[in-house]
């Protein structure tokens, strides 16, 4: 199912938390929702699920507005902090969720069994949810979101509090699900987005500041070229001054621990590799290493969301 978010504005009191937010998500696509705390990620997700309303704009799911309330049955939702009934056994809770989602009575047992298998809860199924560790609770949250086999999955920070193995398992699961479903997930963990998502949306102060694949975003931000070099030289200071004088070099810093190591930042749009080579060749300083540094998603994120 397609999700279309059209010019959504949302105020909490006088504070505008979403400012003209628009984007689209297609089936078979996993959209990663990034942004600093308080940027409006959770609010956007809550609006898509119909839990809270919007002040203007609309969210259209498969041709229907969320305002009609008819879209809820096609959404599986894992809220932030994964609220659960701690005094309920896992199986009972999943049955309860299935029943509220309108799963037919005769299918409920089956669906619950499938979900328990899918999320690996078999040994915990008769325990109370309150007795489970955080990782297993997260799986219960995921199981309840998937119980009615929804076309759309909305996961608000699905991997918080999980250990590295569990994170990988959940990621694999999300990827698998994302092949047929429309998935929106939010997270703080940038490598996670790169690992799981087809497309990234960065939101800051209620505005969408970037929208594209991680490759797109990197290229967008790749104005400055970074290099790490190592030269075989007796003394740093003289060389550093020479490096700084190069026309393409904006900034050069010496790494203090080791003689001959420098970080070079070139001016936007320029590459300093050739200048450095020529300088070194002229002065007979052997170049031992020259490593181009890729712009990391972290940098993109910082650039877009700081200031």
């Amino acid at each position, binding site marked *: 199912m397609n999700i279309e978010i059209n010019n959504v504005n949302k105020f909490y009191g006088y504070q505008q938390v979403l400012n003209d937010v628009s984007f689209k998500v297609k089936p078979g696509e996993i959209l990663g929702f990034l942004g600093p705390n308080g940027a409006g990620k959770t609010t956007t997700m809550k609006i898509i699920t119909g839990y809270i309303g919007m002040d203007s704009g609309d969210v259209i799911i498969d041709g229907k507005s969320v305002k009609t309330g008819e879209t*809820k*049955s096609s959404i599986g939702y894992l*809220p932030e902090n994964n609220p659960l009934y701690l005094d*309920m056994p896992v199986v009972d809770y999943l049955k*309860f969720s299935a029943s509220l989602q309108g799963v037919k009575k005769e299918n409920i047992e089956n669906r619950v069994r499938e979900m328990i298998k899918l999320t690996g809860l078999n040994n915990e199924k008769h325990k109370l949810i309150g007795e489970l560790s955080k990782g297993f609770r997260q799986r219960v949250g995921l199981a309840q979101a998937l119980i009615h086999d929804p076309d759309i999955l909305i996961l608000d920070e699905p991997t918080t509090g999980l250990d590295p193995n569990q994170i990988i398992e959940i990621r694999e699961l999300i990827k698998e699900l994302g092949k047929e479903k429309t998935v929106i997930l939010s997270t703080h963990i940038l490598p996670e987005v790169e690992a799981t998502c087809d497309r990234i949306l960065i939101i800051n102060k209620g505005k969408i500041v970037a929208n594209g694949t991680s490759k797109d975003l990197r290229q967008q931000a790749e104005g400055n070229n970074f290099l790490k070099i190592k030269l075989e030289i007796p003394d740093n200071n003289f060389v550093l001054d020479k490096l700084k004088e190069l026309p393409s070099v904006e900034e050069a810093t010496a790494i203090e621990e080791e003689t001959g190591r420098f970080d070079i930042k070139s001016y936007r749009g320029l590459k300093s590799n050739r200048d450095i080579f020529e300088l070194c060749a002229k002065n007979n300083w052997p170049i031992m290493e020259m490593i181009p540094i890729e712009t990391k998603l972290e940098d993109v994120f910082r650039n877009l969301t700081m200031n």
Partner: protein
Amino acid sequence: MDSVITISKKELKGFFESLSGYIVLIAFLGFTGFFTWLYGSDIFIRKQADLIVFFSIAKWTLFFFIPAITMKLISEEKNTGTLELLLTKPLKESQLVTGKFFAALFLVAIALALTLIYYVSISYLGKVDHGAIISGYFGLLLFSAAYIGIGLFASSISKNQIVAFLLALFIGIFFQIIFDILGNSINGLAGKIFGFLSISGHFDSISRGVWDTRDIIYLLSVCILGIELAKENLVNRK
């Protein structure tokens, strides 16, 4: 309707899994039994085969117990965030509140059903006015429904269960006693209005076996108003 039943069932199961259901039942039977049979102007002192004593005790016991039953029904869902899970499923606010209402009413009905043993006992002791007793039980159910409505409203206001409990009692005390007192002490129309607003007044007349549609309609109205306001509170989260 299915969703309402699902919610009611889950809630009712929750009462008994958390023991609170058993505590309410045992305490209710204990209090009412003690005062009906053993202490004060009990049945043996009155020497009348009726349940007037029971009905007046039950009126006060339920007044305190119903807020204890209803206090967590909505506030806890708000506090733990599970409300978000429920309302992002195809479940309407009205269905949620109605489901909770029936769960609480059913628990009260179980408590009342257990006291039918008093009815059986006194029917061996003398000639019983069956009509009055059936009417009394029916009145207790309506009375409870009204207070459950008030309790649900209180529970929908706060995330804190204790606040919900105290608020329900605070609102309840007006309907239970203050309106009654005002009704008796003020002359003219105002007095009449206050008198009419008293839940206990309406209950008393039903429990005496006097059937007046105004009593029934009034108690049901309070109940429905409470449910409606609780629903509105949930809808207004947006």
